[in-house]
């Protein structure tokens, strides 16, 4: 067994890391977040140049055939730098869902444009608490004329206000709770009956609530009516990449807090010499090691096609809880300065909070694990 990154992965990681260190320092990141636009087009182009937009997709679909571990290797860096570009929403969620459908002209059309950096997509799946379990999807897609009609609401759709296309999960049959009768479809955001309420999230991203009111869907835009597996695999992949981001954020917090505690002096000594501060740092390190170990091990399992529902839930629960605890400890160790918008520390806390809330929080996933799923 070998849980280290390969030479290729290390090379990719080093070049992306160099790019981000140069172009995505915290101040530059804040300038992007504060701008009117939700992300930087130049940075997006750079990610395209690194091949990242095509990385997760199979070669058969003109992708680069990257593995879960490739995505983890890059995802950690995104977390360390708090990258706000829509990689998760457009590539890892919408793009992966399209790729899961595979052999379908509409899916291939949009996936091609996403990989080329010509279009952005959003994955409209979440409906409120609990849609981490896809069988709870309730938005309905009923037969109408030669096509379908879409009704219902999606919440917190990442990138939902800037997408060229929406990849939507909906129910063509059965009741919420049933894994059968789930569909994936593409919807153009300008279609009549689509209402978009855009907002920014507290971790600096652009998102939207979506309402569908009798939206007419041409038959061709229904990609599959048996989508439970595709949705589950898409979410699992996104959860692992998101966990990598969480671990990257934890890495940055651990480093910055260690440095701060070693240099901040009160009572004539560095605060790290107070045992309570030292032990808190030790606990942060323990949390980080558990989270990173779980991440790398789960990624290896997933690459081998052996990651179970339990493994994914263990990972999501652990990064959610340990990430929050580590970030809270980092704020506390910084004292007053840790409470300011000016320092990165609080922004990592907000990112970790958001990551915990998405796709089922730690409470949810611990229960999945505890129930022996």
């Amino acid at each position, binding site marked *: 067994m070998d849980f280290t990154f390969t030479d290729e992965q290390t090379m990719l990681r080093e070049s992306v890391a160099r790019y981000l260190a140069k172009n995505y320092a915290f101040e530059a990141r804040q300038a992007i977040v504060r701008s009117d636009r939700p992300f930087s087009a130049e940075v997006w182009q750079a990610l395209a140049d690194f091949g990242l937009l095509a990385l997760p997709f199979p070669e058969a679909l003109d992708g680069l055939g990257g593995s879960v571990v490739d995505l983890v290797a890059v995802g950690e860096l995104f977390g360390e730098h708090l990258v706000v570009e829509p990689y998760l929403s457009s590539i890892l969620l919408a793009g992966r869902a399209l790729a899961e459908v595979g052999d379908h002209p509409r899916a291939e059309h949009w996936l091609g444009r996403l990989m080329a950096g010509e279009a952005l997509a959003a994955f409209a799946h979440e409906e409120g*608490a609990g849609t981490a379990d896809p069988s709870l999807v309730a938005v309905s897609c009923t037969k109408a004329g030669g096509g379908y009609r879409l009704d219902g609401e999606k*919440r917190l759709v990442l990138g939902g206000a800037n997408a060229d296309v929406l990849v939507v999960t909906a129910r063509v049959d059965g009741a919420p709770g049933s894994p059968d009768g789930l569909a994936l479809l593409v919807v153009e955001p300008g279609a009549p009956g689509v209402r978009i309420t855009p*907002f920014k*999230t*507290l*971790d600096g991203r652009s*998102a939207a609530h979506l309402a569908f009111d009798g939206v007419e869907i041409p038959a061709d835009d229904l990609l599959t009516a048996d989508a439970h597996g595709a949705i589950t695999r898409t979410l699992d992949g996104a959860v692992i990449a998101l966990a990598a981001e969480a671990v990257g954020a934890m890495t940055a917090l651990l480093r910055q807090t260690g440095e701060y505690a070693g240099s901040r002096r*009160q009572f004539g000594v560095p605060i790290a010499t107070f045992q309570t501060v030292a032990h808190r740092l030790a606990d942060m390190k323990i949390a980080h090691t558990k989270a990173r170990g779980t991440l790398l091990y789960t990624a290896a399992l997933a690459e081998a096609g052996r990651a179970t529902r339990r493994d994914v839930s263990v990972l999501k629960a652990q990064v959610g809880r340990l990430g929050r605890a580590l970030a809270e400890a980092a704020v*506390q160790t910084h004292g007053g300065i840790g409470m*300011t918008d000016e320092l990165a520390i609080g922004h990592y806390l907000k990112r970790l909070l958001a990551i915990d809330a998405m796709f089922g929080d730690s409470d949810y996933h611990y229960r999945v694990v505890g129930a022996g799923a």
Partner: protein
Amino acid sequence: MNLEPKPELEAFRQEVAEFLDTAPTDVIREAGRKTTSVFAPFDATMAWQKILNGKGWAAPEWPVEHGGTGWSAEERFVFAEEYCKRNLPPLLPNCLKMIGPLIIDLGTEEQKARYLPRILAGDDYWTQGYSEPEAGSDLASLTCSAVADGDDYIINGSKTWTTLAHRANRMFMLVRTSSEGRKQQGITFLLLDRVDYPGMEIRPIVGLDGFPEQCEVFFDDVRVPQSGRVGAENEGWTVAKHLLKYERGSSSQAPWLYRFVRMIREAAATRTSPFGGTLAQDPVFQRELGELEADVASVEAVEKLAVSGHPLAHDLAFPSFNKTVGTELIQRLTSLMARVSGLEGLSLQLQALTVGGGTAPLGDGFDLIAMPYYLNSRAASIYAGTNEVQRDLIARSLMSR
């Protein structure tokens, strides 16, 4: 022991309830709903203080001769209970709970006459200038200096974390007037009549929740009258410690903490659990809220003992106990709020949170405040002396026995 409620207390409760039901304006109620910090929305809260003062109820804890209510400790507790039940914004603490009582205890007659009525009426707001960039937990190492010059002091240096300095018109502060001896010995406590003296500059600091609440204050040859001194020159440390007792000790946190429990329970009743039914019906959620509520109930029990005069509350460590337990409970409660709100709490809604901002929230009122409250309350274990420092004080009170 005797648990029988006094009948006159029930009559008092009625009177309080009636006033609190009718007196607050809509804006004040909105401020109550949009409170996400111990520092409730400024303008509406000050307006509310004026209304309360009109009734003579702005400072229940002050002595009657200075405008207090003359209520017993039990009556004050009843008032706090009724107040918190109605989700009203808590009055800002700096003036009523900190500098006011300090001036009453240690100020000159002139200072009392000049400042107390305006504090009570909500005409003045005082910011607290203790901390400095290099002097946080180790407050005694402060360096902002005041040099005597005729009837004045000339101040140079800076202060930081001065809460609401950008809304204040006065400031109380600690300055270094001597570098001889132990560092606690050369400190002086000053009242500043204005915050716009020539050479004084205030810069707000934006916090994690996106709002400016704290500030930095810079002093460049700022000339202030020596008549603002409280206590003797170089003896400000004793004065400062006297004030800390007020800053850390509050006798009615439980009603405020129950307010969080109530908000969480109400929100949970409207949300579905991914495991079926509502969140409020979910046993795991019930277990979690139950633990928090039980901890709040223990705080209430301790406070009820304290207001009855029980020796438990005369312990030297009581203010530190109070501060630590209260702030950590707020943090656990707001953390649960954030988790109950979940994804719905992730939207950044600064405009909708602004009182009178006119923007409707994206979700319900609970989702609007859950995350900002959580984020803001991370500071609770930092301000007024970090909880690490409080635990040291608690431990020391044991070891000196």
